């Protein structure tokens, strides 16, 4: 098909399974609607855009569910360049729900600044559409385009508070480093295309298998491609943008970046590792091992030093990324593939719920304190016990303390590491174990502020939490608890997530 067909003059229209594309189509329709309506509706009615955005996201969930329930397990389009399998459906659901929560988080926030609301929703939905595309892309070109699709709106959203130099800085840094990373990744992809003579992941996988031995170019290609996504998941040392961007960007955008964007990076990474070069494990396993260990450690030790809550959460999410990467470091070993995938997916699900919850609290609290300092959380428990307890729950979940969601995610990650029964796996597990302790250092520090420190300036005016934030809190807290107490729920979805055509198991 892909070989040069000199006499194939006849163009045949590709068959498109529109049902399979339905979530993307709904979302695309929604975002066009938002963009259009923004032009025509009155300033006072702009709240409708919020409603439409959230409705669009929920509406897009419907086809996702239908596809999940439909009998066709795997839908393949464009010669396998676009695949709707269970993995992509689970991830799409995660993106959509995370997007929905982000909309909830944003809705009250963007009322306050001079936000370009219509464009904000438009870009948010566009980025989400890119993520949906990423979940199904099984081709270098699609992946590249999807990556830019989800990134370019995000670059701009990061800079969305136009008057705030910090926000500008966040956007520029994110943009420049994002471009650097995608340039490196592209170089890698070009080499990959060169050696495999195809952009289709499954064929690349087959070629990488066929040659058996790997030449230096294979190594270079794999490393460069992984670097591109390591940037996206903010793995050390490609993480440098993350703290600055997270701190500077508007808080809901930060929530979006730290959850959805990161998840998208992992989706692509996993897909590439599992279908494109699974057998190049000797190349990427050590690389990811080092990345994972560095990410956890550096993320943690730097988080310990932070005074700003968002920046701390940024480092925290870097280190969490290290935990997600952990099982991938042994994913290529026999028998570890499935559990590693399960672990990554579960971790993303749980992490999304928990981290969004944290941001919901941050938004609620900053409504009152107007400060990002951790010390502004002093005595939160005494005047806003519910927020205090919920924040404690979220932080404890991030720290991996049972019976909250985070623990099962960490547990499964450790499980797949140890399942490999390899020295590297054990070693990384120990590194992870130590890091999970260090992590409590900063999570505990916030808890300490909330519970044990006095209220700064004795300002105990109550915090009014907007309804949308309340809803977001209910969703995230409920998910965090359910995933922890009944881990089977999360694991069920994670287990469903099987990548069609994945070579490693």
């Amino acid at each position: 098909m892909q070989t040069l067909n000199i006499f194939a003059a006849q163009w045949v229209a590709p068959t498109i399974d529109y049902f399979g594309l339905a979530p993307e189509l709904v979302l695309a329709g929604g975002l066009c609607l938002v963009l259009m309506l923004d032009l025509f509706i009155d300033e006072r009615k702009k709240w409708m855009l919020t409603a439409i955005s959230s409705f669009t996201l929920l509406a897009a969930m419907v086809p996702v569910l239908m596809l999940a329930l439909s009998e066709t397990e795997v839908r393949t389009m464009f010669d396998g360049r676009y695949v709707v399998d269970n993995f992509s459906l689970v991830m799409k659901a995660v993106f959509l729900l995370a997007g929905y929560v982000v909309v909830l988080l944003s809705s009250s926030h963007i009322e306050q600044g001079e936000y370009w609301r219509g464009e904000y929703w438009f870009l948010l939905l566009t980025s989400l559409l890119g993520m949906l595309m990423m979940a199904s892309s099984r081709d270098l070109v699609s992946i590249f385009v999807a990556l830019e699709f989800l990134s370019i709106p995000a670059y701009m959203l990061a800079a969305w508070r136009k008057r705030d130099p910090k926000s500008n800085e966040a956007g520029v840094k994110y943009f420049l480093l994002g471009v650097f990373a995608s340039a490196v990744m592209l170089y890698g992809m070009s080499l990959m295309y060169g050696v495999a003579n195809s952009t289709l992941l499954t064929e690349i996988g087959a070629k990488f298998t066929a040659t058996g031995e790997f030449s230096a170019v294979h190594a270079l290609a794999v490393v460069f491609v992984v670097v591109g996504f390591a940037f996206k998941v903010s793995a050390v040392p490609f993480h440098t943008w993350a703290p600055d961007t997270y701190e500077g960007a508007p808080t809901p955008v930060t929530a979006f970046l730290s959850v959805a964007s990161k998840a998208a990076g992992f989706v692509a990474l996993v897909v590439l590792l599992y279908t494109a070069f699974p057998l190049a494990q000797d190349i990427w396993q050590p690389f990811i091992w080092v990345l994972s260990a560095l990410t956890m450690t550096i993320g943690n030790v730097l988080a310990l030093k932070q005074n700003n809550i968002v920046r701390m959460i940024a480092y925290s999410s870097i280190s969490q990324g290290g935990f997600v990467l952990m099982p991938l470091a042994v994913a290529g070993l026999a028998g570890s593939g499935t559990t590693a995938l399960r672990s990554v997916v579960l971790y993303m699900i749980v992490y999304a719920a928990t981290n969004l919850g944290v941001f919901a609290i941050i938004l609620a609290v900053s409504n009152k304190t107007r400060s990002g300092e951790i010390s502004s959380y002093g005595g939160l428990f005494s005047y806003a016990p519910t927020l205090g307890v919920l924040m404690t729950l979220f932080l404890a979940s991030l720290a991996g303390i049972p019976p909250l969601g985070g623990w099962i995610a960490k547990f499964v990650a450790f499980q797949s590491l140890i399942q490999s029964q390899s020295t590297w796996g054990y070693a990384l597990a120990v590194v992870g174990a130590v890091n999970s302790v260090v992590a409590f250092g900063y999570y505990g520090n916030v808890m300490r502020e909330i519970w044990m420190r006095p209220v700064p300036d004795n300002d105990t005016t109550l915090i009014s939490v907007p309804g949308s934030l309340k809803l977001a809190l209910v969703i995230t807290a409920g998910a965090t608890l359910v995933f922890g107490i009944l881990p089977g729920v999360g694991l069920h979805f994670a287990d469903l997530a099987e990548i069609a055509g994945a070579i490693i198991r």
Partner: protein
Amino acid sequence: MNLLAAETEVLAPLASGWFLENAWLIPVIPAIAFALIILIGKRLPMKGSELGVASMLASLVLSAGAAYQWIQRVNSATEEQFVEPVIRSWSWWRSGGFDFGIGQHIDGLSVVVLFVVAFISTLVQIYSLEYLRGDRRYTHFFAALTLFSGGMLAMVLADNMILFLLGWEVMGLCSFMLIGHWWEEDANSRAALKAFFTVRTGDVGLLVGISMLYFAANDWTQENLGLSGFSIRGISAWALSGEPNSTVIMVAAIALFIASIGKSGQFPLHTWLPDAMAGPTPVSSLLHSSTMVVAGVFLVARLYPVFFVGLDILGSGGNLIMFIGAITIVISAALAFVQNDIKRVLAYSTVSQLGYMMLGLGAGAWLPAVFHIFTHAFFKACLFLGAGSISHSASHHSFDMKRDMGGLRKVMPITFTTWIISTLALCGVFPFSGFFSKDEIIDNVGNNGYNTFMIVGLVGAFMTAAYMTRATYLTFFGEPRGASAGHSSHESHDDHASHDDHSSHGPHESGLLITAPLMILSVLALGSGLLNATPFGESWERMKLWVEPRAVEVVDSTYSGGPGESLIVNVPSAGEGSSKSVCGTSTPEIGVCYAPKLEHAKFKWSKAMLSMAIVFLGMVVSWILSMLLFTKRDARLVGLTQRVKILGVGHRFLVNKYYLDDLYEKVIVRSVAYPISSAAYWFNQNVLDGILHSISNLTRKFSGWVYKNIDQRVVDGTVNNSATFTKSVGTAAQPTQSGKVSQYGALLFSAAAVAALVLVIINT
């Protein structure tokens, strides 16, 4: 329970009886009484003391009954027949195949000590009714006293080492409470702490010893006797079976002996005893006569086979027990010389007498040693109670002989008489009880071939006579001084202020509640020796008949059944060859041996006369010296006219006389007697006690050091440093997060480049 009963009946049925079978009630009654006193004592008309006295009386009755029935039992046996102890045991708890029993082991030894303990305790409690009347912790006192006796009784009839340990420790606890009874004063609480702690140090030996014996003996005892390795009976039989590894049993015996040393205040752990005099006098009396300190001796007597084999008793050249005993006799007797506190004199005397018991046990004179426990209890209790009586009624709670006593023989006739009787008994004057026991010990030590130790014993006897004479003289003769003379200017020793009314009355005889026990005890001090009056022939040696275990038990080889399954044990070297079996020459081929066969010295009047002479010499010398020293010195204090009256000579002469006195005191006494005693005392206070204190100080300092440097700096420091380290890693990593995009880019590209280079090189 009575494993061998079935088989022994074949020989002759031994008499038993209710009191023997239910002897376990004896400690249980005081224990219950203790609980009752604690719970409801304060609400009773006599503040709970009646419960204590009643329980002790009940125990006494039971003990007496048991003793009576034991005698019957012994009489029902044939001459050579082993008198089966009355053992009853119940399973207390089980764990991991270990069966911890609880039960009674009644044999001659227990019966004697039970009776003594119950008897003395009863008298002491009666005495305390008066002595502590009005004390603010009257009820607590009786509770503790009762539990104390209960503990001792439990220990005495314990059938296994765990129960034994329990009684032992309960006593330790009660001694802490009793010695520290007036804990408001720092010295008292310190003394209590010291007593408990010193004894507890020795207890390590007990723990270790019990553990070792258990594991060494358990297999053997389970297999052959169906008893646990804690069982005293089992351990005894095992020790004599020839089975034990000689090192194990030696180490175990030494370990146990360390416990004895601590408990019985033997050298070098005796320093707690004099300090323990801080407690109320009845406590001292009980502590030093029949309980607590006797426990150590009792331990040795109880597990005699273990010590016999482990320390090679009867071996040539002496053994650890004898050495310790002998050293203790001399050292503590010497210390008794330089004490001014009457109770301290008695305390050192007790230590010294315990040394005799140890010496006897170590030298194979088991029966005389046990007998000495018996007699010593009476006269020493009497002496202590006498001292208490003096302080209570005459010296305004002072025990200082030099300052507050003197010439009391007239005002306190009963106390004086009983004191004299007991003193004579203590000194071992014929026909007082001490003679029959102490002399027996010395005699047997010599008889068993330890002539050096016999001489030590005699020296001890001389010293005993001497210091007791000194004490007697100071207390009852001469002129009244200080409080006894009616002066009450000095500070009261025991500040239980409710007694202050006595001071107005001056010295007087104590009330009946105090004197009655004294009298009873003095009668026994006089007469109890007759129970084993060797000089009068075999038929007088009742104690030997009743108490001394017969060496061997004959086992019918046809016996089978019972949990022990096989009781057929080959006793090694039984009567074969020239080597002397521990079970004696008449050991049959098959059997279990529970006690070593011991020889008894033939009584010889010549030897007795020799020791008597020594005792008298000691008394006389001491008397003269005391007269010269204390009366004269004292006269100087009273005033000129009085001196003239007494001596009827001129002033200059008197002055010269004083020179002589000084000469006497300074040159003769101080250069001869004092240096030795003082040196001993100095050694005692500075070296032994000093070691003890410095050990405790050192431990404290060391622990402080460990805490500061090891725990806080190293161990905790590691923890805190790891936190600091983590943070400093963060600090080190922070520059990478400079905020400069170019630097971020450089990092990104360089990381990619390095990773690529490494992996490219590796993968080609």
